[in-house]
């Protein structure tokens, strides 16, 4: 069917782009580059979970996507505050 093919192709595309962002996490020169890469990878994983929820017709996975997005926001804010404080002390 065309619908499932489109969704499966989207999952493959998102995995490929997550690998491209994972290169920046591994090879980033500074701490901020790694945080940017992690934020990007987590957003792509949220997209993959939402697509899987529609593909498998398991609707509780959308709640998991919402919770992962909230955890991502909290971790990003904490890492940003950590960077700010480390610059003030150094």
């Amino acid at each position, binding site marked *: 069917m065309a619908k499932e093919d489109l969704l499966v192709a989207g999952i493959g595309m998102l995995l490929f782009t997550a690998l491209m962002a994972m290169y*920046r996490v591994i090879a980033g020169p500074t701490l901020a580059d790694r945080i940017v890469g992690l934020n990007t990878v987590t957003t792509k994983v949220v997209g993959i979970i939402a697509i899987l929820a529609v593909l498998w017709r398991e609707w509780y996975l959308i709640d998991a996507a919402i919770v992962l997005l909230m955890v991502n926001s909290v971790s990003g804010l904490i890492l940003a505050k950590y960077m700010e404080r480390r610059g003030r002390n150094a």
Partner: protein
Amino acid sequence: MLEIIPLLFGYSIMFFGSLGVIRFPDVYTRLHAATKCDTGGIMGIVFGLMMIMDGPFVVKVKLLFLLVLIALINPMVSHAIARGAYKMGIKPEVKVDMYAWDNP
């Protein structure tokens, strides 16, 4: 068949955003590419999923909630990361640093 348009829009935006994350020379330009393309791409993909799904109405409301939450949270986190990176001492590779005029 109309749901192909936002889904393909979201996939292509995601691909070019990740290309920018790899290729750009600076933290701030990488952050620009990453967060703008991520927000637009995920919003396109979730909007396409809202159009393509056939389920209960509550699930569509949940996907709409996910859309609004992404549009609220993702720019906020990127703004905090840029502020923290500047306060940590990473200088942007530009000719004129206008943020340093306001914050000496």
